[in-house]
């Protein structure tokens, strides 16, 4: 049961109420939790997926968006293989804060971390951020981009599966024996230059 070939840490960040917990629950439990309360501290969930006949274990850390939990959240950046930065497409303020979040990521995360921008709640009628604006932002900051709806289960599975396969690819290319540097700044599993944006999601 607990045999897996790869283990990846995925960390979700973003303003309070953008739907991080709902995305995780949709992916791990296949449901949209009614009356989801704000996350306290950080939540931890595991889901093992199968990709190309390999078991990939995803360790998902769902952080609290509220300001007072920032120090807890910050401590998780460093060990993340992938960071999912979420905003709410129906809320301009959550989009405006992306800059701040990026600053945090720059400061605390490994520069090799896989970064994904997610615009959530596409099911809502009152959209404030057009898709192209989100896409643009992601492009400018070397991030993958995808729009989701945790409520309608849109793109949620894909979001995590693409992350898993991307990380798996990176890990594999890293498996080749390498000699040079006494890798100080990176863990053994993340490489990736985050090059082309959105390619795999579009």
């Amino acid at each position: 049961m607990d045999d897996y070939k790869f283990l990846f840490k995925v960390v979700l960040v973003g303003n309070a109420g953008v739907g991080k917990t709902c995305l995780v629950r949709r992916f791990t439990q296949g449901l949209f939790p009614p009356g989801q309360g704000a996350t306290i501290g950080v939540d931890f969930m595991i889901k093992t997926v199968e990709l190309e006949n390999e078991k990939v274990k995803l360790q998902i850390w769902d952080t609290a968006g509220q300001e007072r939990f920032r120090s807890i959240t910050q401590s998780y950046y460093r060990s993340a293989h992938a960071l999912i930065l979420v905003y709410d497409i129906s809320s301009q303020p959550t989009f405006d804060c992306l800059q701040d979040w990026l600053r945090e990521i720059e400061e605390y995360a490994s520069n090799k971390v896989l970064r994904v921008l997610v615009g959530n709640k596409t099911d809502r009628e009152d959209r404030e951020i057009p898709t192209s604006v989100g896409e643009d932002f992601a492009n400018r900051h070397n991030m993958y981009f995808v729009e989701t709806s945790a409520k309608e289960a849109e793109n949620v599975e894909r979001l995590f599966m693409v992350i898993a396969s991307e990380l798996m690819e990176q890990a594999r290319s890293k498996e080749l024996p390498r000699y040079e540097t006494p890798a100080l700044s990176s863990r053994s599993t993340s490489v990736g230059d985050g090059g082309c944006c959105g390619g795999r999601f579009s």
Partner: protein
Amino acid sequence: MDCIDSREKIDELYKKLTQQEEENDKYLESIMARQVNLEAKLNNITKALPNLQILHNDAVKLADMISHTSTLAESVSAKVRQLDISRSRVSECQQRVQDLQDLKLCKEGVKTALENEEYEKAAGHIHRFLAMDQAALKKTASHMSQGRSVEDCFTQLDSATKELRLIVAKNFEQAAAKDNAADVERFFKIFPLLGDKAEGLKRFSTYLAGKLTVMAQKTLKTCLDTPIHDKRAPVVYADALTLLFEGIARVLEAHQPIVETFYGPGNLLDVIERLQQECDKESRKILTELIQRRNLDHIVRQVDDASRGGAPMHTVASSASLVSMAASASGGQTHRRAGSTGGSVESDRKVPDPRDLDPLLNELSIAHSRAELYMRFLRRRITTDFESGDEEQREAGLKQMELVLQRSDLCRLMQELLGHYLLLERYYMSESVRKAMTLDTLDGEDSQTSSVLDDVFYILRMSIRRSSQSGSMDGTCAVINDACTLLEIDFCSYLHRQLKKGYSSGYLDLTAQAYNMWQSSLQQGRLNTSTQSDSDSARVMFLAHLNNADASLEFIKVMIRGLEEDIVTSIGAKNLTANDQAKLSSCLSGFGSVTASLRHVAEYGLQQLIASAVKPRTGPWVDAFMQANHQLTEEEFASYEADEPFVQNLIHNLEGLLSSFKAKLTFANYDALVGHVASEITTQMEKVIMKSCFNRLGGLALDKEVRALAGYLTAATTLSIRDKLARLTQIATVLNLEKPSEMSDYWGSSAGHLWRLTASEVRQIMLLRVDFKAEEIKKLKL
């Protein structure tokens, strides 16, 4: 078709026909025999026919009878049912008559009881009155043409109820104001009798809340009056919170039984919800004091700026003027801090000394843990209180409890406090680790490691422990994560930086002669220590750092084991959910990647050591091989074999080299060093062999020498290095052949020879044998 052309055939056919006839006869006879039997049976049936008719008639009759009986039964049971209804009406009627009689009694009773101020008695009557089915009573009374008097009773009792409620409320408030516990309890008990539980609970909770306020003010004052030099002074605010929470717990414990006895279970949450408002107010006061007096906001801002700006904290700290350092040394610190809230540029630039943060961090952690304990206490109490209720009620109650507690100010304030604590703890760790690096020295003469190792792990373990004392798993995990980051980034790159300097550059310039000179001066005790001491200590430090990297692996293992225990004890095994456990072990596993990085660092250090201390010295030793003659006569061989000058010299030198490191390196590092030396020597040996020529006896001598060398190296380490020696051994084997043709036997045989040499390499090596003909070697099938 067969034609009947012979007598034999005719006979045969006749025989067949006769046989058939006989069979037919037999068959007929048996049929005839059965006729009798059948006739008898038919007879019987004919006789039975009339009986069947009778049976049918009987069955019809029976069916009639049954249906009749059932009708009868139904009508009987209907009657019974009617009887039942009648009986219950009668008893209802009796009850109503009883009620009517009681009604009068109640009316009278209440009146006298009220007149005599016997409130319990009056309430008893009212309680009886409220339990009656008033609408039904009115109806009955109107049938009995007693409507008026009953109506009267109702009006009077209703107004008596109202009156009593007012009286009880008033008396309760008076008792509460005087803090007359006996009276408070007396009137509190009456509310439920008057059908006014909610009102009673509300008033009672408010009364308790008032008690809390008084108590909290007293304790806060005592705490604030704690003299500055008192032992508890550094934790007075945590103490104040402790006293507050303990006070609330005491109040609850003292009053819960009353509530439960007279109001039943399931009411505690309402009381606590009200008390929590008070608790919120009081804890906010205490925390506000803490933040102000400890200058928390300012420190947090400083630390935040320092780590955000990534400013050269180093220089900022060391450039702080001596005056201010003196001030802090003379204890003028609290005063200065309190005065610096204005935020002058200068004081903003100053970063706090981690040591100064120690008491504050302790206090924050303790404060958080007290709140955590208090919340746990409330949860336990409320859960027990809901236990007797039904499933649904309990679930709703527990859900409500979580909402109440999580939305409380206290909870939010504590989350903020924890956030500040974590920020400061991170700063504390990274600054202390940085300091440990600048103060790094050798622990002592025979110490393999330097002070940074003990210091860093001491700091990290201490901080993680402190975080676990806060009682928050999320907080503990955050500090563990931060500690991992510190080790992986700061500590590893520190070691890496140190190792990058190399094992004293002096060695690189040492030619074999210079080295020999140095050695002989050593032997003669003429070493000029003063000029050597600098590079000496650099070398010792280099080895210490190499050892630090290796020893860290063990330190981490020990630390993880210790921490798991620490954390489980300080948070409490029974308070840990499965999810908490999973979080913890996942975060602890972060040390795994630290371990990997440390291994890289150690490996890098070894490479450095090999490059500076091994390669330059072994080169000349091995090169001596080329000066020796490898085409030996029997005589030469005999004398060579006697003392193997080359290899014994090499081994002697290696022994000298390795033994100089043996005591100075950790076991693992020493083993790894021997491994590297083995690789280095074999590569170098291979090179010089390829530049030499051998005859039969020269090959034999080489084979012996290689064996001796391999024997020495294998014995020098606990690791298996056979692999590293395989090529060299095989080269010696090839050079030690009697004649070229032997080679194809070796090559083809399954003698377990896993050849590390390619066929062309083998040929090349064989060509080194002057006595082997190139022709023959070429012809070999390999």
